[in-house]
C-alpha cells in the first residue's frame, strides 16, 4: 500500500508551500508548524514505502498524469521508484525534517520566519520530485525549482548585499550548467523521441543513439551535474552560498541539492556507461576537485567556508567513484557524508547562534566545556568524515577507495589517498582549533543551545556513528551495496589498514600543529611558500577571474551591442533614412522659385517630355 502513495510527499509539500506562502505574513508560527508537519508526514510515508519496497521485490513502479500533450509527443508526470530513488527520498526527508525542527528555534524572531519555512517546503517538494520523477523534462523542471529554492534561501537576508550577490551567483552559475543539461536532454529526445528515462535506457542499450550524440549529450548532462554539485569550474558559488542561514547550508549545501548532481549522474549511469570518454572526464574532474577543494579547506578561517570546501571535495570523491561506475559506493558515501555534514553545519550553526553570528574559528577555541553537546556531536561528525575506523565515514570512504583501486589501479589510487589525507587533516584542524586549546576570554558567557537545536544534533550524531550497519546483511536486506547495485560488498584488508593509518597520521599531525601549538611547521610553510599560501588563501583567484570575465567581457560586450543598436541600427539606419527624405524635400522645394517664367518654362518642359515620349513610343 505504501508504494502507491509515493506521489503524496511532493504534493503535500507543494500544498504546504502554497498555504504557508499565503499565510506567512499573518501567522508565521502556524506556517512553520504546517511545513514541519508535512515533511514529517513525508518521512513517515518514506518508511512505509521502504518497507513495501523491501518486501515486494519490484524495482520500479510507474503511474502517469499528462502535463503537455502535442499529438504524439506527450510529457507526463510519472514516478520511477527504485532502490536509488528510495534511498535519496529517505535522506532528503530525514535531513529536511531535522533541519526544519532545528530551524524553529534557530530562526526564532526573524522578520520573515514564515516565509523561511514556506520556501523550505517548496525546496523539499522540488527535491523529492527530482529524485522520484521518471522523465527527463520534468526532472529538469524540478531541478530548476530546486535552484529557485536555493536562490530564495541563500538570498533570504536580501538586505545584505553579500547575500543577494551570493544568491545571484549561485543561481547563475548553476544556470549555466542547466543550459547544458537542457541541451543534452533535448539532444537525447531528438534521437530517441522520448523523455521517459527507462525507455531511453532501453533504446540506448539497443544502440538507438549514435555514438557522438551519446557522448555529447552525456557530457552536457554531466556539465549540469557539475553545476549543481559544484565541481571544479563551477565550484565558486558554494562557499559564497554560506551567506544564507546556517540550517539552509546544512540542508541544501550539504545533504540535498548538491547531492542532486551526484544523483543525476548515478541515475543516468546506464547512459554514461556507454560513453567511456565522458566517464574518464568524470573521474578526472572528481579527482581534481577532491584534492583542489581539500587544499583550500585547510587554510580557510571561516568555519562555514571550511565545511563548504570540504563538501565540494567530498562531492568530488563521489563523482570520482561514479566515474568508475561505483554507483553503490558513491551513493553510500553520499548518505553518510550528507548526514555527517548536516550534523557539522548544524553544529556550526549552534556555535554561531550562541556567539551571535561569529564564524571566524580564530576567535573560537576551548568551547568544549562551554557547550558540550554541540562539541561532542561536532567532533563525532568531523571524526566520521575524517575517516577514523569505527565510524561510518570510514567505511563509505573505504568503499570508494576500493572501487578506485579495482577499476583505476594504483595510479589513481595514490592521489585519491592524498586527498583523503587532506580531508582528515582539515577536519581535525577545524575541530581542534574550535573546541580545544585555550578559551578566548570574550567567549566566557557562551552557553549551550536550546533543546530543539541539540536534539537534531544528537540524532544525527547517532546516525553518523551507526550508519555503517547498513553495509551488513540483516535477514532479507543483503547490505546496502547489494541493495543498490545488486552485487555483494567486499573488503580489502590492506587498503583498510593503509587508509586508517593515513588518517591517524593526519590526526597526529593536526594534534601537533594545533593542540601542542608547535607553530614552527606552519611558520615554515607560511614563510617558505608564501606565494603558495596566498594563492590558496585567495581561492586560486578563480572568483576574480570569473568576475573579470563577467564584468570586462560579457557586460562590455552587452553594452557594445546596446550602443550599436542605438547608434547604428537606430540613428543611422532609421533616423538617417527619414532625414534623407526631408533633405530631398528641402532640395526639391527649390524648384518653386516663385518667378512666373520658371513656371512657364517647367510647363513647356513637361509638355515637351510628353510629346517626345509619345512620339518615341
Amino acid at each position, binding site marked *: 500500500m505504501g508504494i502507491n502513495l509515493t506521489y503524496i510527499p511532493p504534493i503535500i509539500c507543494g500544498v504546504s508551500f502554497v498555504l504557508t506562502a499565503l499565510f506567512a505574513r499573518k501567522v508565521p508560527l502556524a506556517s512553520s508548524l504546517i511545513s514541519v508537519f508535512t515533511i514529517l508526514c513525508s518521512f513517515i510515508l518514506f518508511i512505509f514505502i521502504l518497507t513495501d519496497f523491501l518486501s515486494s521485490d519490484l524495482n520500479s513502479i510507474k503511474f502517469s498524469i499528462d502535463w503537455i500533450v502535442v499529438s504524439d509527443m506527450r510529457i507526463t508526470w510519472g514516478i520511477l521508484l527504485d532502490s536509488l530513488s528510495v534511498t535519496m527520498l529517505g535522506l532528503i526527508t530525514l535531513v529536511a525534517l531535522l533541519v526544519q525542527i532545528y530551524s524553529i528555534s534557530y530562526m526564532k524572531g526573524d522578520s520573515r520566519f514564515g516565509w523561511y519555512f514556506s520556501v523550505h517546503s517548496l525546496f523539499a517538494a522540488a527535491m523529492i520530485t527530482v529524485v522520484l520523477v521518471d522523465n527527463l523534462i520534468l526532472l529538469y523542471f524540478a531541478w530548476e525549482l530546486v535552484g529557485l529554492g536555493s536562490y530564495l534561501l541563500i538570498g533570504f537576508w536580501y*538586505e545584505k548585499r553579500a547575500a*543577494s550577490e551570493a544568491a545571484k551567483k549561485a543561481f547563475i552559475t548553476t*544556470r549555466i550548467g542547466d543550459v547544458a543539461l537542457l541541451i543534452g536532454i*533535448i539532444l537525447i529526445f531528438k534521437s530517441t523521441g522520448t523523455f521517459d528515462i527507462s525507455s531511453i535506457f532501453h533504446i540506448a542499450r539497443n544502440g538507438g543513439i549514435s555514438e557522438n550524440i551519446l557522448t555529447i549529450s552525456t557530457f552536457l548532462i554531466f556539465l549540469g551535474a557539475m553545476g549543481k554539485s559544484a565541481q571544479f569550474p563551477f565550484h565558486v558559488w558554494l562557499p559564497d552560498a554560506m551567506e544564507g542561514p546556517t540550517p539552509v547550508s546544512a540542508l541544501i549545501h550539504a545533504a540535498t541539492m548538491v547531492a542532486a548532481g551526484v544523483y543525476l549522474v548515478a541515475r543516468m549511469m546506464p547512459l554514461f556507461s556507454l560513453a567511456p570518454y565522458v566517464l574518464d572526464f568524470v573521474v578526472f574532474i572528481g579527482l581534481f576537485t577532491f584534492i583542489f577543494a581539500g587544499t583550500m579547506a585547510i587554510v580557510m578561517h571561516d568555519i562555514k567556508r571550511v565545511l563548504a570546501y570540504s563538501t565540494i571535495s567530498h562531492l568530488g570523491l563521489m563523482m570520482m567513484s561514479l566515474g568508475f561506475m561505483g554507483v553503490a559506493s558513491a551513493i553510500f558515501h553520499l548518505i553518510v557524508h550528507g548526514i555527517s555534514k548536516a550534523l557539522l553545519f548544524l553544529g556550526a550553526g549552534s556555535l554561531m547562534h550562541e556567539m551571535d553570528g561569529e564564524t571566524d574559528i580564530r576567535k573560537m577555541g576551548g568551547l568544549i566545556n562551554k557547550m558540550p553537546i554541540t562539541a561532542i556531536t561536532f567532533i563525532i561528525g568531523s571524526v566520521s568524515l575524517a575517516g577514523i575506523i569505527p565510524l561510518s565515514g570510514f567505511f563509505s570512504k573505504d568503499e570508494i577507495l576500493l572501487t578506485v583501486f579495482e577499476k583505476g589501479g594504483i595510479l589513481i589510487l595514490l592521489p585519491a589517498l592524498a586527498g583523503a589525507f587532506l580531508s582528515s587533516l582539515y577536519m581535525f584542524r577545524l575541530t581542534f582549533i574550535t573546541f580545544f586549546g585555550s578559551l578566548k576570554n570574550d567567549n566566557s558567557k557562551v552557553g549551550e543551545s536550546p533543546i530543539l537545536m541539540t536534539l537534531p544534533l544528537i540524532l544525527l550524531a547517532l546516525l553518523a556513528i551507526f550508519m555503517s550497519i547498513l553495509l551488513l546483511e540483516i535477514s532479507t536486506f543483503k547490505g546496502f551495496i547489494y541493495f543498490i547495485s545488486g552485487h555483494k560488498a567486499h573488503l580489502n584488508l590492506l587498503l583498510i589498514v593503509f587508509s586508517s593509518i593515513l588518517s591517524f597520521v593526519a590526526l597526529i599531525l593536526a594534534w601537533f600543529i594545533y593542540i601542542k601549538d608547535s607553530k614552527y611547521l606552519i611558520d615554515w610553510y607560511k614563510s617558505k611558500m608564501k606565494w603558495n599560501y596566498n594563492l590558496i588563501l585567495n581561492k586560486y583567484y578563480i572568483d576574480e577571474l570569473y568576475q573579470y570575465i563577467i564584468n570586462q567581457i560579457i557586460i562590455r560586450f*552587452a553594452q557594445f551591442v546596446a550602443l550599436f543598436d542605438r547608434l547604428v541600427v537606430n540613428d543611422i539606419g532609421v533616423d538617417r533614412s527619414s532625414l534623407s527624405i526631408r533633405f530631398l524635400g528641402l532640395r526639391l522645394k527649390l524648384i518653386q522659385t516663385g518667378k512666373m517664367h520658371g513656371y512657364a518654362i517647367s510647363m513647356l518642359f513637361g509638355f515637351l517630355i510628353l510629346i517626345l515620349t509619345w512620339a518615341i513610343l
Partner: protein
Amino acid sequence: MDLIKENILILTILLPLIGATLIFITPGYLDNLVKYIALIISFVTFIISILIFILYDINSGGVQLLWDWEWLSLKGAWPLGDKGITLNLGVDGISVMMVLLTGIVMFTGVMASWNIQNRSKDFFILYFLLLAGVFGVFVSYDMFFFFLFYELSVMPMFLLIGYWGSSSDFRTFSRTKEYAAMKLTLFLVAGSVLIWIAIIAIFVQAGLGSFNILEIQKVVDDKFPLNFQQINFFMIMIGFGILAGMWPFHTWSPDGHVSAPTSVSMVHAGVLMKLGAFGIIRIGMTLLPEGANSLMPLLMILGCINVIYGAFSALGQTDLKYVVGYSSVSHMGYVLMGLASMELLGFTGAVYQMFSHGIMTALFFLAVGAIYHSMHTRDTLILKGIFKKMPYISVFFVIAGLTSLGLPGLSGFAAEILIFLGVFKSYGSLGILFGSLAVIGAGITAIYILRLVSKVFFGVPDENKQNTNNNLDATRFENTAGIILVGLILFAGLYPLPFIDMITSGVTPILSNVLGGL
C-alpha cells in the same frame, strides 16, 4: 444563450466601440464615472473572451463561430464579386488564445491605468479604439478587414504615447515621447505598406473578387505559382515582422515601450506585437504555404538573431523599461523561431509563447509602471532595495522576471521548452545549432534578470539618492490586476494542457498546409 453564441465574435469588436462611445458622451469632469465605465466594459469583454474560449469546440476544430455581414460588393468583374468585401468573423484555436489574451490584458490594463488624471476621458476612448482594432484583427477572416483593423490599432497608439507618454531623458540617452510615437506609427504603417501590396497581389492573383481568406485558400494550389508565393510571403514576413519586432526593424519597439504609459505598454507589448506573428500565421502561412515553406530558414535566422541580440541589448541597458523592452524583443524572437521550425511542437510552442509572453510582459510593465509612478525614476543605477518599500510590486516583477528566464512552473517554461524541442527537431544538424543558441539566449536572460533583481530590488534602499517621501506600494487595482496575471502565469505554467490542446487544434491544419508543399 444561442443568440450570444451566434453573435459573440462581433461583440468582441462592438463592446470596446460601445465603451468608447459611452465614455465619449459622459462629461469629462466625471472622472471616476469614466473610469468605472471603462472597468465594467473591459470586464464584460474579458468575460466574453473567456466565453469564446469555452464555446469553441476543440474536438471538431477548424474555424468556428462564423459570422458575416456583406459590406461592399465589387460588381461584375469577378465570380465572387457580388459578395465582394464581406466582414467574415471566425476563430480557430490560435485566435481563441489571442482573444483570451487580449481580454485579459485589456481588463488588467484598465486597472493599471487607474491613476491617470490628465484627460482620462480621451485616454480611455483611444484605448478602447485600439483594443477594438486588436480584437478585430484576431477574429476577422477577411483580408480587407484584417488590414482595416490592423490600421485601426495603429492610429490611437500615436496619440496615447504622444500625449500620455513619458520622455526618457537621463543617463541612457534622451528620447522624447513625440519621437517615439512618431517612429512607432511610421514603422507600423511602413509595415502595413508591404502588407497592403501583398494583400492586393493575393486578391488580384486569386481573381475571385473576394478577400475572404477561406475562399482564397481553396484556390491557392492552382492559382499561386511558387515565385509569386515567395515574393509575397517575403513582403508579408517583413511587413508583419516589423510589428513583431523582428531584427533589424525592432528599434521602434523599445522606444515605444519606454515612452508609453503603463497600460498602453501593457497592451502594446502584450498584444500588439503578437499581431505581427499572428498575421504571419493567418495570411502568410495560410495563403502562401509554399512561399512560407521556402522562406522559413530566413525567418529562423532572423528570429535567432532577435533572441541573442535582444538579450545582449537588454543586458546592456540601465533603464528598467528599456531592459523589459529589449527582453520582449528577444522573446518575440522565440516566437519567430517557433514559427520557422515548421514542427508541430515548435509551432504550438510559438503560439503558446505569444500567450505567455503577453501575460508576462503585461505583468512586467504593470510593475515597472508602478515603480516609476512612485519613484519618479527608472534608472537601475539609482534604484535600490525596492523590495522593502513596495513588496507587492516587487513580487510581481520578480515573478515576471522568473517567467521570462523560463523558470519551470511558470508559463514561460512550458512555451519555451516546446519551441526548443521544435527547433531542435527541425533543419537537421543546423536545428541543433539554432536550438542551442536559443537555450543560451534563455541563459543570458537569466543573467540580466537576476542582475536587475539583485541590484534594484534587493539590498537596502539608500534614502538620499531617490526621493522616498512617497514610496507608496501598488494601489488596490494594480494589486488585483497583478494577482490575476500572476495566477494566470502559474496556471498556464503548471497545467498548460487545455491551452495546448486549443492551440494544437488550430495549428495542425495550417502546419499540414505548409508542409503540404513538400
